[in-house]
């Protein structure tokens, strides 16, 4: 835009500004910078000329650093490089040689101006006195900060020298219940508890040295109450001034109390207030930490379990149970010494860590004292109860390394006391502990063997009953039995590992393994032998396995994966097993039977033989328990014959087949045949054989020859040697014409875990 006769507005304004700048008292310079030389003055006003003791004309073309000497040694050319305002300290050099400390403030002129060299940049420079300006600015900042912090809800303190406070805000004053004015200087330190003062002053020192610092300290309010505070200090230094800090003081009393509560709850049993398992483990770990020979005192761990606590809990209710536990906790705490530890592991288990006892003898005395204390009758919500306890004692020695190990040994001893009749104590002896540890190891190894499928399966032939003197018996089925050859310990008896599997929930896996192997072997024999291979495979299943949902589907998958069908399978279940959960068993068995499997009841006659379940359960065969067969030719022959006769008659009445188990002599074989059993198995006919031996036997195609063995033997292996036997179908059992069609035992009976795994165990069938 241009104005008539006077040029553009810009030119008019520029002219006015130059006129003003020439007249004002503020020293002003215009300076040009370029890459070709040091910054030089292009214009100066009168005030600048006065300051520097020169004429304006003398200043033009003068190098800037020559008249405004940088106080910090940094040349103006290094400062005036970026197009933004910059302030720096200088000594203004008067023509008479004197200097004056001032500040130079340079502002770049915007854009390239007309007539300038492309690399040239012009700056407007004004000269101001430095100190008052800096101090006022600092003061303004501090005033603003003080105004802000005064209203802040967070307790805030400001120090300007050492630990002396210059300002505290209202929130800090409220925290200490004192007027803000009375907390300035070092007065605030008087509110810090003496024990925490060192930590706070360390924190202050750190902040004064320029680092962020924090501390938790206790502050005493004017009323005398103690508050926990988290103090956070940040350094607040001004150049040339003392070091100070700005701090916040957070009242963390409630938070710490909550944390303490949580920490307490994490380490204590909430019912009894005793240390819990975690705290006990910590205490035990602490006493076990020194090397055994450096443990200075004798320590004993007593694990106490209330006898029949379940009776109280179930009979009188949980509230009564809890009351009893609290009472027992009080008694235990009262009977031990001050530095002993009483903890509740959970349930009705308590542990006492006792110091200074004189070996097993001293520990036994203490244990009896504890049993006596616990046994005093107590009224639990109106009911008089006489508690009793079993205690396992472990006297710590060099063999004890971990808390878990100690508690495990104490547990073993406690169970030993329970087994011995309860209401007593037992000291963990080396043999019992070793045995328990062996069991633990076996369980671990068994688990691994199952995972790696290294358990063996052997097969025991089942033969048709006939003339025992004929010397040959027709194989009608094979029963598979599980065997475990431990890589280090050798053969482990099923009487050992089957109970371990039962106790450790490994039974379903064991059953599944045997099923898998039996199906695989049957499939292999079929491929090799064709028509001569067994027609079906029977697998024994425990009640536990039967109760697992989806069993039928999994069995079907396993069978089909081996290239077989479910109708190739016979399931053997124990009489006792089915009684435990008839409905679940029935459902699984019905499903499997619907798919084509046949079912045999093992150990028949040993349990609570219920005719009801025989009617309800889908069953095809009964296996007469070996205990009856064994007595057929003994002094108890009469009753044994009666039972066997009854079983056979019952089976026939229900349209079921019968198999005699554990036949070991020709006499027994003769009686079994005479009583009408359809088939038999036992050492008289054959030991269990591995799959390759079975294959060899079947390849030879012959029947099993049996050795005439008149003397019964329940332990010695039979001397019978297998002979080729033609596979024959078990005759359909006699019975009512309307009875369910019996499944022919032209099968291999494979033993799972809950059912026969061995032919030697006395209690369960084939164990």
């Amino acid at each position, binding site marked *: 835009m241009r104005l008539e006769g006077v040029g553009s507005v810009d030119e008019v304004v520029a002219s006015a500004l130059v006129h003003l700048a020439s007249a004002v008292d503020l020293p002003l310079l215009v300076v040009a910078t370029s890459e070709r030389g040091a910054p030089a003055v292009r214009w100066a006003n009168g005030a600048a000329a006065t300051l520097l003791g020169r004429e304006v004309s003398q200043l033009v073309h003068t190098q800037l650093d020559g008249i405004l000497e940088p*106080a*910090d040694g940094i040349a103006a050319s290094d400062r005036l490089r970026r197009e933004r305002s910059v302030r720096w*300290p200088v000594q203004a050099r008067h023509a008479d040689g004197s200097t004056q400390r001032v500040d130079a403030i340079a502002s770049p002129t915007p854009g390239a101006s007309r007539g300038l060299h492309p690399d040239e940049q012009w700056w407007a420079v004004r000269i101001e006195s430095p*100190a*008052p300006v800096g*101090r006022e600015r600092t*003061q303004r900042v*501090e*005033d603003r900060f*003080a105004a802000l912090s005064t209203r802040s809800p967070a307790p805030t303190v400001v120090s*300007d*020298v*050492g*630990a*002396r*406070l*210059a*300002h505290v805000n209202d929130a800090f004053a409220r925290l200490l219940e004192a007027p803000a*004015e009375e907390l*300035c*200087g*070092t*007065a605030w*330190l008087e509110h810090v508890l003496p024990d925490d003062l060192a930590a706070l*002053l*360390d924190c*202050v*020192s750190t902040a*004064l*040295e320029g680092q962020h610092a924090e501390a938790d300290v206790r502050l005493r309010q004017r009323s005398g109450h103690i508050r926990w505070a988290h103090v956070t200090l940040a350094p607040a*230094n001004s*150049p*040339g*001034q*003392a*070091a100070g800090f700005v701090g916040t003081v957070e009242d963390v009393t409630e938070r710490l109390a909550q944390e303490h509560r949580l920490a307490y709850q994490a380490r204590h049993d909430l019912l009894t207030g005793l240390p819990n398992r975690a705290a006990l483990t910590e205490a035990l770990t602490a006493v076990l930490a020194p090397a055994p020979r450096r443990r200075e005192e004798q320590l004993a761990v007593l694990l106490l379990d209330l006898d029949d606590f379940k009776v109280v809990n179930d009979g009188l209710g949980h509230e009564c149970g809890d009351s009893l536990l609290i009472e027992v906790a009080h008694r235990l705490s009262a009977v031990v010494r001050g530095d002993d530890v009483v903890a509740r592991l959970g349930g009705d288990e308590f542990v006492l860590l006792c110091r200074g006892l004189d070996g097993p003898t001293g520990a036994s005395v203490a244990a009896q004292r504890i049993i006596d204390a616990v046994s005093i009758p107590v009224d639990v919500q109106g009911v008089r109860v006489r508690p009793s306890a079993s205690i396992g004692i472990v006297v710590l020695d060099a063999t004890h390394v971990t808390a878990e190990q100690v508690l495990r040994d104490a547990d073993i001893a406690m169970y030993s006391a329970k087994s011995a009749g309860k209401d007593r104590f037992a000291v963990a002896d080396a043999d019992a502990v070793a045995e328990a540890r062996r069991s633990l190891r076996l369980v671990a190894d068994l688990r691994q063997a199952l995972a790696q499928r290294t358990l063996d399966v052997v097969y025991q032939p089942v033969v048709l009953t006939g003339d025992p003197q004929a010397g040959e018996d027709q194989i009608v089925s094979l029963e598979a039995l599980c065997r475990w050859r431990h890589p280090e310990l050798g053969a482990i008896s099923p009487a050992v590992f089957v109970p371990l599997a039962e106790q450790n929930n490994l039974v379903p896996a064991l059953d599944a393994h045997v099923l898998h192997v039996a199906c695989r072997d049957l499939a292999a024999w079929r491929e090799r032998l064709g028509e001569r291979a067994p027609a079906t495979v029977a697998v024994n299943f425990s009640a536990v396995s039967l109760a697992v949902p989806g069993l039928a589907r999994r069995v079907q998958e396993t069978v089909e994966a081996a290239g077989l069908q479910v109708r190739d399978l016979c399931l053997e279940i124990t009489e006792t097993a089915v009684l435990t959960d008839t409905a679940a068993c029935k459902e699984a068995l019905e499903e499997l039977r619907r798919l084509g499997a046949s079912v045999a009841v093992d150990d028949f006659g040993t349990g609570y033989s219920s005719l009801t379940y025989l009617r309800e359960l889908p069953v095809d065969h009964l296996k007469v328990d070996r205990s009856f067969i064994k007595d057929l030719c003994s002094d108890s022959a009469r009753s044994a014959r009666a039972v066997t006769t009854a079983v056979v008659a019952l089976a026939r009445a229900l349209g079921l087949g019968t198999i005699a188990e554990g036949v070991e002599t020709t006499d027994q074989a003769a009686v079994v045949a005479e009583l009408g059993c359809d088939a038999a198995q036992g050492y008289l006919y054959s030991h269990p054989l591995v799959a390759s031996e079975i294959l060899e036997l079947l390849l030879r195609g012959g029947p099993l020859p049996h050795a005439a063995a008149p003397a019964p033997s329940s332990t010695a292996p039979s001397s019978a040697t297998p002979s080729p036997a033609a596979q024959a179908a078990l005759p359909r059992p006699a019975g009512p014409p309307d009875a369910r069609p019996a499944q022919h035992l032209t099968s291999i009976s494979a033993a799972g875990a809950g059912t026969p795994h061995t032919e030697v165990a006395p209690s369960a069938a084939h164990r």
Partner: protein
Amino acid sequence: MQLTADGSAAAADVLGRIATALDDLPAQRPVAARVIGAADDLRSSAKTLGEVVSYDPALTAKLMRLANSAYFGLRGRVSSPSFAVTVVGFSTVRSLAVAAMAGLDDESALPERFWERSLLCAVASGELAPRLGVRAPDAFGLGLLARLGQALLHRCDDGYRELVASSPDRADLLVAESRAYGVTHVRLSAEALASWGFPADMPEGLLQVARGGVSVPLAAAVSAGIEISERIVNPEHRRAAVERLTAGRWREAEIEHLCSVVTAQSEELSRLLA
């Protein structure tokens, strides 16, 4: 330095001796003079100032004792001159150096109870400062040097001792000083600080103290600090209203407690700096 005597030739002579002393003292205590210069240099850090102080063992010892005193609240945690500088602040270091340079700690060459009064004034000014919006170290340092002029008069005029003795109160002394020399010792203190290159607001603050009336907060802190020190030392002191001196920031009712705090801290500093 430019000092003018309104009175006699004797007074002019005294002021001339004082002017000479102000020029000579830095040469007599060169390290203290360097400390004063370094304390005013924006490029100085606590480390570099601490290093300068270290050249004067007596000054270093005083600085360390001061930094570890209860007044600064750190109680024995200061173990290096540089941290001591950090803790007490540049202005206090500078005041210590001036005190050393001017021999303010030498009781034999000073008016009676001079050092005690100076410490009381310093501590009181520092205590009063925060509420007045002043940095405590600034007020402390200026309070310590407010009586510097008295030391100069005492050194340069044998008659000053009698002048002091015949003045029952500080107000009387100031009147007597004005009459005898044309200036008060406070004005002389301000001139000395200006002559030794102190930041302008410090001598300016003392000039305001000398003038009385409306003043900047720093001057108010020192004026009130002087008032409190006089109350403590001189039972015959004619009291000035603290509310007036502090623009109402401090109340008379608070002063008794403040006096006891100031006395305790000052006694400790006196022991440490002796």
